[in-house]
């Protein structure tokens, strides 16, 4: 089979899309935002509890869409839980580089390894927006989504 496809739809991603982590609406979220990609109809809602210490104390998502958009959201929630907002910001920046096939110097080795799973999307420029939807929605929730 086509290697690029195998990269894109690797087991980790399919597993996240079939069994999304932190899935479902959150009671008492401090921040919330909806993301929508009108081109393909992908939707995600991100719920956050931001702690006084500036950390992402809790995170959850709900959504509907392609395997890539939903897997990316699921992986993101896994990664961001417990992180400081600055850390999260750095992760996002690194992720946005990786999905474009660029170097992401700011990432720790562990984070890079986790995020590189999504790197295969760089071969599919028409699909990059699917992968980044959840991250942009997270950012939107933090910046403008106080409930």
């Amino acid at each position: 089979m086509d290697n690029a496809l195998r990269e894109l739809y690797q087991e980790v991603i399919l597993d996240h899309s079939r069994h999304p982590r932190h899935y479902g609406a959150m009671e008492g979220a401090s921040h919330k935002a909806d993301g929508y990609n009108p081109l393909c109809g992908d939707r995600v809602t991100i719920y956050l509890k931001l702690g006084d210490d500036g950390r992402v104390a809790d995170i959850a998502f709900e959504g509907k869409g392609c395997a890539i958009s939903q897997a990316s959201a699921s992986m993101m929630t896994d990664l961001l839980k417990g992180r400081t907002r600055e850390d999260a910001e750095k992760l996002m920046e690194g992720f946005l580089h990786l999905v474009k096939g660029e170097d992401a110097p700011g990432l720790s080795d562990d984070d890079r390894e986790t995020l590189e799973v999504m790197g295969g999307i760089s071969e599919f420029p028409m699909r990059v927006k699917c992968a980044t939807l959840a991250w942009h929605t997270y950012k939107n929730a933090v910046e403008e989504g106080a409930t």
Partner: protein
Amino acid sequence: MTAQTTIKPAFDAEAARAQFPILSRTVYGKPLVYLDSGASAQKPAVVLDAMRDFAQTDYSNVHRGVHFLSAAATDAYEAARRTVQKFLNAAREDEIVFTKGGTEAINLVAYSYLMPTIQPGDEIVLSVMEHHSNIVPWHFLRERCGAVLRWVDVDDDGSLDVAALDAAIGPKTKLVAITHMSNVLGTVTPLKDIVARAHAKGVPVLADGCQGAVHEIVDVQALDIDFYCLTGHKLYGPTGIGALYARRAHLKGMRPFNGGGEMIREVSRDRITYADPPARFEAGTPPIIEAAGLGVALEWLVGLDRAAVAAHEHDLIAYARQQVSQFNWLKVIGDAPGKGAILSFEADGMHAHDLATILDREGVAVRAGHHCAQVLMERFDVASTTRASFALYNNRADVDALVAGLAKAREVLHG
């Protein structure tokens, strides 16, 4: 008088296919299998060559100069109008207005025909399977003038509920706006019946023929229809050109939409009079090369045995329908009797975009999404579908490639 029959050569699908240069290219090292003609059709070499030749030998602006080339270009532009007239069997050439596409043709009717007279509470009847270009202009009239949109449902197989349409036409109805062929379901609507029912209540009918004109033979006089819209790029012609057929009586009463050069009779500081149709609706320099290209595309199309073309396309859709029925995880949306060559489907646990990406890597180009028909998506309770749309140049091998690609997608996404 002796009856004349023109014998056209039998339709040879492989020979027709060979006339489309792009179809011999590869993508990702695989032969291109183009199943997205519903979005835009490829163009035969005769059209591409004619456009280049025209630009190299006869091109200039139209209706303006007295010089040689201006006359040559004007002749070509007006000849293309007569070709569209013949293609639709309109009674007069001045009933054909060139537009930049189907979308602009519908907007022209909304702004120039309906908007000046519509009153709050007046109704526009349309079906749930319309393309956004036959919805949004009417929403404008709802938002700006208080018009009411009356929606007509389709059956579960995608057939139009004509009795419901009839029932929706009431004393306040000002227009029925209906597709000739759905770009998602492939459903072909019984226009003649619809027009008869609407006219019985004194209501005019607009048909969105962007898909229908490609696959059906259209005779606007036999249909007795008021407005018929088409778009060039789905008709094996170029982008940037389309046409509105409108009855002379309607056009004469319509106010202009765009203002500019070419559409006036006289302009002074405080007075203006307008040109007669169709010039009144063709402000500014039109897409001249594209109009010429559309003319050539239509001449080429009517030069084929169109009944045989239709039979070929119906064979393809029937074959595709039968082949995909082996997948119990796949659900076809739109099974109306006599439907055109469009296959939309949903796949269990596989999103249309993932499917389309995997098919793409096999060289198979399909469309995934809402197809500019969100009202229809809502009707069938789906967020998106995958759509394979066929043209006269497709063959059974293309269907086989689609089917093989679908099996592969299942394997990639479900192991």
